[in-house]
């Protein structure tokens, strides 16, 4: 499906998407992992990580799926399996896509995240839809019940400022933050 894009991305849409992907692709991924000597739990972990990567790629505005999503997901899953079971420094490219290795979250990150989640879940959910789900402005405004794009944007920046201040304040109290 070239140029495939999600039309809308509220929680319900995502659930449908993941159920469909599970049904269409988890069997082949599980078969692959099983054949390679892996367990059910390993297949599950790898498939779920592949779904996250697929999702993050597919919401980027520049993303264009050059093959079908089943083949793409299987490709990511194989890549993850090989990476896990071979020399971890070895680079395994997949179908022209490069999966960047990100720094894993630090313990201090999780503390701050925990705080943000408890103190301002509403703001975090709004910011998530803008910066993680890359929801179009109009869709985000509708989803969060704003009267229009402008007021959603104003709230977005207010939330961002709040998070920025919280992150700064908390980070300075956790020593390992800037390591």
């Amino acid at each position, binding site marked *: 499906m070239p140029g495939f894009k999600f039309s809308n991305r509220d929680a319900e849409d995502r659930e449908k998407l993941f159920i469909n992907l599970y049904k269409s692709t988890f*069997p082949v991924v599980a078969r692959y992992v099983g054949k390679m000597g892996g367990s059910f739990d390993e297949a599950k972990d790898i498939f779920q990580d592949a779904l996250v990567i697929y999702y993050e790629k597919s919401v980027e505005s520049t993303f264009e799926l050059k093959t079908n999503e089943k083949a793409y997901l299987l490709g990511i899953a194989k890549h993850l399996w090989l990476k896990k079971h071979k020399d971890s420094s070895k680079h395994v490219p997949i179908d022209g896509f490069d999966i960047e290795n990100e720094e894993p979250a630090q313990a201090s990150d999780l503390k701050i995240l925990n705080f943000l989640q408890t103190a301002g879940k509403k703001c975090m959910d709004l*910011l998530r839809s803008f910066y993680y789900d890359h929801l179009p402005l109009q869709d985000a405004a509708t989803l969060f019940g704003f009267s229009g794009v402008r007021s959603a944007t104003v709230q977005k920046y207010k939330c961002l400022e709040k998070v920025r201040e919280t992150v700064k304040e908390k980070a300075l109290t956790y020593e390992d933050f800037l390591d």
Partner: protein
Amino acid sequence: MIETEQIEVHLLHPSEPGDALVFEAKLLLDPELRDKIQWQKEAYRMVKLYGRNQLKQEIEAVHQKLFTQPEHLSFSQKIRRLFTNR
């Protein structure tokens, strides 16, 4: 507010035309602005982590649904069979 928006353009859309030069000049003169940029960058990183964590929970919920609800029994059995008899 406007400043936060300018920092966003600076960090997330650096190639966009705008008042980039004016902003760069401001940056040289304003250490507080540099500080804000640094923490705004961290804020974006935290939002991404949050988004990813939430998404993982949503995916796990789907997994639980598919592997516990009777309506998906034939699917879950098909998968489980791949890992038995070995």
